[in-house]
C-alpha cells in the first residue's frame, strides 16, 4: 500500500470507530457507556503517551501529574468558565507545566528521565496537597455543578478522536519523523538537522495537553477529588502499560490494548477478584514474552509461529529426555575420533 492508501485506511478506521463509539449511548446501557468512557479515557492517555514517549523512547511517568492538574483546573474553574472552558484551560495548564518540566528534564534520558518525571509528579501532588491545606484549609474538592453524563462521554470521545487523528497526522509529518529519529539516536538526528529540543518539548506538551484535558473531563465523574486520587501514579503506570502492551510505536496498538484491557478487566473482575488480577498479571507477562511488538503486532503468522515453536520445543525435549540426544552425541564423537 502506498502511504496515501495507508492514510486513507487509517482515517476510515478512525471514522468507523468514532461512529460506532458515537452510537454507543443510543443502544448501549449506561453501564456499557461508562465502560466505553473509561476505555476512551485510556485511549486518549495511552495513544498520546505513545505518540511522544513511544517514538522518542523517553519513558515518562508524568501522565498522572497532567491528569491531576487538569482535574484540579476543572474543579476550580468549572463554575466560572464553563465546561469547554475548563477542558481547554486544563489542557493549557498541563501543557504549560509540561513545557516547564520538559525544559528542566528533557536533557536527561532513559532511567533518569523516568525517575525525574515520577519524582516531579509526586512533588506536584504533595505541593498541591500542602497548598490546598494552607490556602483553603482542606485538601479535597467537591464538584457540585456537573454536566450531563452524555456531555462527558461526548467530550472524551471527541478527545479520543482528536488524539488518534493527531497521531495519524503526526506520524506522517516531519515532526513525527523527528520524534522517531530522536528515539533512534538523538545526537545523530540533531546532526541531520532536527531541532531536538523544540521537538521534544513540543511533543511532551502535546501529550500533556491531552492528559490535562482528559483529567479535566473525568474529574466531574468523581464528584470529590483530592490529590491522592487524581495524582495517583497508577494512572500514569496504567497508561504506560496499555501503550506498551499495545505496541508503543504503533498507531492502533494503544487503542487496541485499551479496549482489550477494559473488556478483560470488566469480564474477569466480576468473578474472583484476586484471581482476576493474577490472571491479568500473568497475561501481561506472557504478552511481553511472546508478543514483544505489542498487540498491534499480532498476526496469524505469529500464532502459527507459536505453534511451530511449541512443537519444535517439544520435539527437542523428547529428543533430550528419551536419551537419543546423548546417544547421538556420543556416536558423533566416536566417529570423529575414528577419522
Amino acid at each position, binding site marked *: 500500500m502506498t502511504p496515501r492508501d495507508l492514510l486513507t485506511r487509517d482515517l476510515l478506521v478512525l471514522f468507523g470507530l468514532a461512529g460506532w463509539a458515537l452510537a454507543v449511548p443510543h443502544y448501549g446501557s449506561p453501564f456499557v457507556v461508562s465502560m466505553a468512557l473509561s476505555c476512551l479515557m485510556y485511549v486518549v492517555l495511552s495513544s498520546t503517551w505513545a505518540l511522544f514517549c513511544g517514538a522518542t523512547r523517553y519513558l515518562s511517568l508524568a501522565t498522572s501529574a497532567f491528569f491531576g492538574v487538569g482535574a484540579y483546573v476543572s474543579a476550580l474553574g468549572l463554575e466560572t468558565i464553563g465546561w469547554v472552558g475548563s477542558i481547554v484551560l486544563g489542557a493549557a495548564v498541563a501543557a504549560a507545566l509540561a513545557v516547564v518540566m520538559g525544559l528542566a528534564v528533557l536533557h536527561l534520558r532513559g532511567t533518569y528521565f523516568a525517575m525525574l518525571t515520577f519524582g516531579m509528579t509526586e*512533588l506536584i501532588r504533595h505541593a498541591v496537597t500542602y497548598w490546598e491545606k494552607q490556602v483553603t484549609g482542606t485538601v479535597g474538592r467537591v464538584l457540585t455543578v456537573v454536566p450531563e453524563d452524555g456531555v462527558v462521554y461526548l467530550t472524551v470521545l471527541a478527545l479520543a478522536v482528536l488524539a488518534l487523528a493527531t497521531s495519524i497526522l503526526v506520524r506522517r509529518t516531519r515532526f513525527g519523523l523527528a520524534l522517531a529519529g530522536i528515539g533512534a539516536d538523538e545526537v545523530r538526528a540533531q546532526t541531520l538537522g532536527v531541532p531536538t529540543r523544540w521537538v521534544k518539548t513540543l511533543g511532551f506538551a502535546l501529550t500533556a495537553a491531552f492528559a490535562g484535558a482528559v483529567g479535566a473531563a473525568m474529574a466531574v465523574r468523581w464528584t470529590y477529588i483530592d490529590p491522592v486520587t487524581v495524582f495517583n501514579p497508577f494512572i500514569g503506570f496504567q497508561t504506560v502499560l496499555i501503550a*506498551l502492551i499495545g505496541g508503543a510505536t504503533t498507531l492502533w496498538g494503544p487503542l487496541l490494548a485499551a479496549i482489550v484491557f477494559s473488556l478483560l478487566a470488566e469480564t474477569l473482575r466480576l468473578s474472583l477478584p484476586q484471581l482476576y488480577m*493474577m490472571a491479568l498479571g500473568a497475561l*501481561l507477562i506472557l504478552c511481553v514474552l511472546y508478543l514483544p511488538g505489542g498487540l498491534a503486532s499480532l498476526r496469524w503468522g505469529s500464532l502459527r509461529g507459536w505453534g511451530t515453536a511449541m512443537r519444535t520445543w517439544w520435539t527437542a525435549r523428547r529428543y533430550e529426555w528419551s536419551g537419543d540426544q546423548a546417544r547421538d552425541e556420543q556416536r558423533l564423537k566416536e566417529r570423529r575420533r575414528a577419522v
Partner: protein
Amino acid sequence: MSLQSWFELLASGLITGAIYALVALGLNLQYGLMRILNIAHGEFLMLGAYATWAAHTGWGVSPLLMIPVSFVLLAALGLLIHRLAFQRLTATSPNLDVFEARGLMVAFGLMFLVQNFASLVWGADLRGYDYLTSPVSLGGAQFAANKLLVAALALAIAVALIVWLQRTLLGKGVRALMQSPVGARLVGIRTERLHPLMFGLGLGLAGVAGCLLSMTYTIAPAMGEPYSVTALIVITLGGFGHMGGALAGGLLLGVVEALGMHFTSPSLKSLLSYSVFILVLLTRPQGLFGRALKT
C-alpha cells in the same frame, strides 16, 4: 535545641535511613546493576514479611530465624521467576532500552500476581505482631530494640555487599553483561548463570528486608508500592548499582526527613524529600556517588 535532642533526632533519622537503605539494596542489584526495574520489589518484600508473620503467629517461629529462611525462599523464587520470564527476555530484547521497558512490564505483571496472591491467601486485612518492641536506652535516648536490630542488620548487609562486590568481579560482571552481552561472553562470563544469580540475590534481599520490617510495621497485601518507590528514590540518589551509594542515599534521606519533620512541619516531609531527590538528579544525574557519564 540541646545536644541530647540533636542526638535523638539524628539517630532516629539514621535508623529510618538504614531501613530505607535495606529496602533499596535488593532493588539496587536488580535495577542498578541489571536494569530490571522491578516495580514489584515491594511486593516481594511483602511476601517476606508475610512469611515471617505467618511463621511467627502460626507456629511461633522466631522472626530472627526467619531472616535466613525468607532469604532462601525468596531467592529460590527469584531463580524460578528468572527462569520463566527474564531468561527469555534477555535473549530476545534487541537492546538495553527495550529490555528495560519490557522488564518493567514483566515486573508490573509480577506485581499484580504477587499482591493478589497474598490477598487471596492471607486476606486484605492489616496484620502485625509484637516482637522486640521494648525500648533500649542508647546514649540517653530510647529506641525500639527491633529497629536497632533492623538498622544494624541493614548496615551489616550493606557493608557485606559492598565488600563482596568489591572483592569479586561479580558486580562489575553484571554491569558489563548489561552493557554488552557479547562482550561479557567474550571474556568468559557465564551469562546464563550470573544473571539469574544476581536476580535471585536481589529478591532474597527483598525477603530479608520484608522479614525485618514486619517486626516494626504493619503489613498488608497492598503495602509494597511505597517501598518500591522509596527504594527507587534511594538508589537514584545514591547512584545506580552503587551499594555504598544506596546506603548513603538511604541514610541521607532518613536524616533529611527527620530534620525536616522536626524543623518544619511533618506535612512537608514528602515535599522535602522529593525536592532533594529532584535537585540531586538535576545537578548530579548520576547520583551522589555515581560517576559522570559523557558521550
